[in-house]
């Protein structure tokens, strides 16, 4: 906080203004500074006719409110929490009551007073609804909680060895994270009523000390200045979570990946992608070196710098896909006529590029060559893009991805995609991965929050829509949200099912249609749902809705396009050409946006 105005780079004020501001702020207390920042935001908002960027909706009062969180398996704790909420409400406290399953643990750092009612089950295990919260709290992900006051009511049964284990864990860990214990933990046996009532009474007595009036300043986060991270200066983001989100029986392995952006200054908008710099699969690198009979430790020159062949193939060069340049070079190196013939046939060439990896080419068309010649033929390893699946407003300092691991059998051996398996198989929480943000200004939520949106996102195409829905909720956008999702099987491939259900229940998502292609004899896809809902879809569009499509470019995007043309032509009662033209017009007007890959 001691930086002088001159030393701040990329500053929106000129020197004169900066100095005036510096003088005006001199000597103010942190509390006063916070008030001023809120005041300035309010002035700006009033001038621009937009909402002031105060704390996000739903948390507006968190500084003053009592948040009651319960973890309960058989309902005892839930009942106590309900009663406490009612009693606190009667006393005029603002209260938020939630099951731990519905609470985003990262929000803890925004709270000032949280009370926990949690039981213990299994053999000292948390109740189901507290499991993930507990995992977060006890993990290294848990933030410092200096500004939090808390109290814990633990439910248990003294006939178990680990009496009130979960409550005890919460209590100890919160204190360890710097939170202030408003009341000592109360541990209840199966006859919990009296102890619980007494505890609730003391809690209500103690509350005014921590959430009384005068503590109402909205908490604004300081605006960080964007630091520059790009391809050449990627940010090493810590992996917070790498979680498979397809069920056991799924034919696919899709990962939900959470990365920390803390300290990076990186910002993004819903619709942006994250570029990921990766390493090739070590097993593949070894196989390739082996197949060519090279020595991995031998040095090669890669565009002017010298490193071992193994490092070059791992970090610098593309080996999981081929391209025309490599194929032509290898054609020359190998002198193989069959390869030459394939190169001369456009269709074959296409197939080769789409489905062969470098190792397939060198195994199929062996050649006697040296490591440097081989390296020269390869392309530089390119970063891979992943649609960002989170809203920054809802997940401060984090970015989430939805990654389908590419693994397949070909030429009698297992094949891997470089980036997707790097993320899925070779990174765990605590590791880091190099990333930077790829803005995508052509895939943006409507500027007007009252506008409806229709989102078509089968498979991993659903990723940006997770960000959209989170963002619109944070903004309190009034427009309706309609998601059309599809995948193979309902029971294993309904990506983010629990989150969508919660969004629906809590009104953040207005409509969800799903198409699972392999659950019945007749295959159904998102385009079928679009056709089935032609009337409503058209109504939404007519009403000004924006339409978004994300995911597979090869088939889906075209199929959806065709379905949309059908919808327009049937609902408007016009011919194909006219319908096509109208869809184009929607595109042009920015009301039909696509992010397909």
């Amino acid at each position, binding site marked *: 906080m001691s930086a002088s105005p001159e030393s701040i780079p990329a500053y929106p004020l000129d020197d004169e203004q900066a100095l005036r501001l510096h003088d005006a702020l001199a000597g103010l207390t942190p509390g006063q500074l916070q008030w001023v920042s809120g005041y300035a935001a309010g002035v700006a908002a009033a001038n621009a006719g937009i909402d002031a960027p105060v704390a996000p909706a739903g948390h507006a009062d968190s500084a003053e409110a009592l948040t009651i969180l319960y973890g309960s398996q058989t309902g005892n704790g839930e009942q106590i929490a309900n009663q406490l909420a009612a009693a606190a409400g009667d006393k005029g406290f603002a209260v938020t009551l939630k099951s731990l*399953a519905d609470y985003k643990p990262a929000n803890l750092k925004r709270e000032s007073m949280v009370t926990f009612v949690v039981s213990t*089950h*299994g*053999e000292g295990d948390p109740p*189901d609804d507290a*499991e*993930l919260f507990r995992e977060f709290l006890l993990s290294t992900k848990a933030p410092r909680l200096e500004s939090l006051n808390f109290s814990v009511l633990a439910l248990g*049964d003294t*006939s*178990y060895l680990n009496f009130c284990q979960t409550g005890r864990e919460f209590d100890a860990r919160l204190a360890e994270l710097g939170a202030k214990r408003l009341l000592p933990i109360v541990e209840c046996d*199966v*006859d919990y009523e009296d102890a619980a009532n007494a505890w609730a009474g003391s809690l209500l007595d103690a509350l005014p000390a921590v959430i009384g009036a005068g503590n109402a300043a909205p908490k604004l986060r300081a605006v960080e200045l964007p630091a520059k991270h790009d391809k050449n200066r990627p940010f090493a983001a810590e992996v917070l979570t790498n*979680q*498979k*989100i*397809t*069920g*056991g029986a799924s034919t696919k392995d899709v990962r*939900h990946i959470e990365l920390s952006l803390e300290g990076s200054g990186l910002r993004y908008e819903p619709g942006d992608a994250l570029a990921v710099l990766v390493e090739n699969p070590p097993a593949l690198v070894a196989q390739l070196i082996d197949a060519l009979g090279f020595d991995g430790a031998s040095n090669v020159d890669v565009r002017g710098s010298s490193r071992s062949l193994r490092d070059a193939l791992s970090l610098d060069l593309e080996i999981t896909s081929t391209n025309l340049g490599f194929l032509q070079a290898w054609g020359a190196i190998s002198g193989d006529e069959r390869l030459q013939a394939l190169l001369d046939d456009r269709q074959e060439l296409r197939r080769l590029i789409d489905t062969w990896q470098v190792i397939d080419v060198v195994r199929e068309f062996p050649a006697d060559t040296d490591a440097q010649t081989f390296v020269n033929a390869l392309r530089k390893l390119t970063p891979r893009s992943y649609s960002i699946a989170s809203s920054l407003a809802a997940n401060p300092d984090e970015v989430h991805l939805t990654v389908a691991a590419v693994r397949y059998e070909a030429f009698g051996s297992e094949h891997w995609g470089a980036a997707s398996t790097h993320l899925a198989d070779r990174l765990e929480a605590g590791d880091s991965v190099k990333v930077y943000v790829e803005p995508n200004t052509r895939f943006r939520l409507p500027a007007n929050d009252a506008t409806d949106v229709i989102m078509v996102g089968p498979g991993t195409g659903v990723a940006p829509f997770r960000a959209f829905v989170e963002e619109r909720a944070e903004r309190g956008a009034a427009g309706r949200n309609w998601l059309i999702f599809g995948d193979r099987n*309902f*029971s*294993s491939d*309904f*990506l*983010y*099912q*629990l*989150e*969508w*259900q919660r969004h*629906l229940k809590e009104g953040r998502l207005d409509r*969800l*249609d*799903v198409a699972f292609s392999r*659950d019945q004899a007749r295959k159904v896809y998102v385009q079928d749902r679009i056709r089935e809902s032609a009337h409503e879809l058209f109504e939404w569009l007519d009403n000004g809705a924006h339409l978004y499509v994300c995911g597979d470019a090869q088939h889906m995007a075209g199929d959806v396009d065709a379905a949309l043309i059908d919808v327009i032509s049937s609902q408007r009662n016009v011919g194909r050409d006219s319908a096509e033209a109208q869809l184009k017009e929607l595109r042009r007007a920015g009301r039909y946006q696509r992010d397909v890959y």
Partner: protein
Amino acid sequence: MSTALSDVERIKAASRHLRGTLVESLRNPITGALADDDTQLSKFHGIYQQDDRDLRSERTRQKLEPAYSFMIRARVPGGICTPAQWLNMDDVATRHANGTIRLTTRQAFQLHGVVKTRLKQTIQEINRQMTDTLAACGDVNRNVMAPTHYDLSHVHRQVAEEARRLSAHLTPATSAYHEIWLDGEKLDDGEADVEPIYGDTYLPRKFKSAFVVPPQNDVDVFAQDLGFIAIVEDNELAGYNVTVGGGMGMSHGETATYPRLADVLGFCRPDDVLRVAEAVVTTQRDFGDRTNRKHARLKYTIDDRGVDWFRDQVVERSGVTLEAPRSFAFVGNGDVYGWQRDDAGRWHYTLFIQNGRVADTGERRLMTGLREIAKVLHGEFRLTPNQNLSISNLSDDSKALVDGMLGEFGIDNTSQATPLRLHSMACVAFPTCGLAMAESERYLPSLIDRLDAAMADAGLAGDAITIRMTGCPNGCARPYIAEIGLVGKGPGRYNLYLGAGFAGQRLGCLYRENANEEEIVAALSPLFSSYSVGRDVNEHFGDFLVRTGVVREVTAGRTFHAAAGDR
């Protein structure tokens, strides 16, 4: 204590005779579950929402809802099932469920693992063979039990017939079942729904009834809300001793809940059965506690108001004068295995089915074998109250045929199992039962391996002791009336109850709390030894433990939780 009606009462009242929003729930493609309220109503249609508990935490991490599927229970009054019904159940289980059939402790069928999108088709197919699922669960009279041993064939037939009649009489009248599952094919031709016996909110809680013919107490008549003990005089059925107020369910740590054995109310004539039964049901309907589901069973209504009060209600409502109970005696609550010939010369074979699970396992192709037998069978199947199966009513020729097939498919393991195993039962518990706290069906067989060894060491290899395990205190396998009762408390931990009567005539008493396998074996081994040397002639294990003071004699449900030394 609150006097507000329990939430389930609200749901029933608003359900328009059990319709709720089931149709909408079935259509909702976003979840494999029903709407919360509908999960209560579906039970009345014989359908329980469950989820694979083995996968629960994994799926939460995967941001997927629990792996929901449904358990379907089909009613089989008296356990009597035709070969065609068996084949149908087998077919449905194979195509829509998890490929196994579960025979229950109340002589019914259960299928597990039916997903929501297949539910309707499955129910329709079950109904193809005049088996239905209505009232297999819910706050109504459940599957009516009748005995499955055969010495006096004409009395048994009469009693089984009476069980059927009672079942039909107490079946809910709502047309919701046909409307929702069978596409409105209104078999009762659209009469506006009136529930003449139950009323609009049905009973306060589940209700269970059974018939029994001494000397075998295979149905565990004292565990029933309503029981009829056949009194046979001069080889003819004279009438029944009516019993009321039995039940097993309780909750750990809540002494206001307890298992209770039924009281004998009096004697009635065969013609009076329906009237007496209806009076018992309507008394419970009107006086059962609708504010607290843990206190809503008939057993609490009777303990709260007294047996005499209850008898007066029944007499007044039925117009039947109950005579003094007649004498009877029970010898055991297990099944009689192997071939039996009844007094009419027909053959019956009772087959041991471990914990009621019909499945092919390695050499023992139980499911396949029973399917093949059903295809050629001139006779019937009887589901027993101990989760076993009888192949019944066979001629001499059929007997020979069935005998051959039992061998061919490796089905007949009755002779290999120890008497302990043959007298064992375990409830379903994990992974399907949402209430399970510990393993049961998947675990008891291996625990019995160890206890068999301990019994053999004590010289008891040939002795029958009843042993039952449940995964929670609800008591679905009636553990509190097994000589060794094991009731799950947490993963791998059980409360051990000892001293119950071999014929289900006395409750057990808590002997060890929260014991793991080692502790269970360590607790029982010395008792086996002292029993082996110290017992009287023909004295059962439970009786011995009570006589020698190892456990207190529990004389009433109310004193089940009392401290040692109390009565």
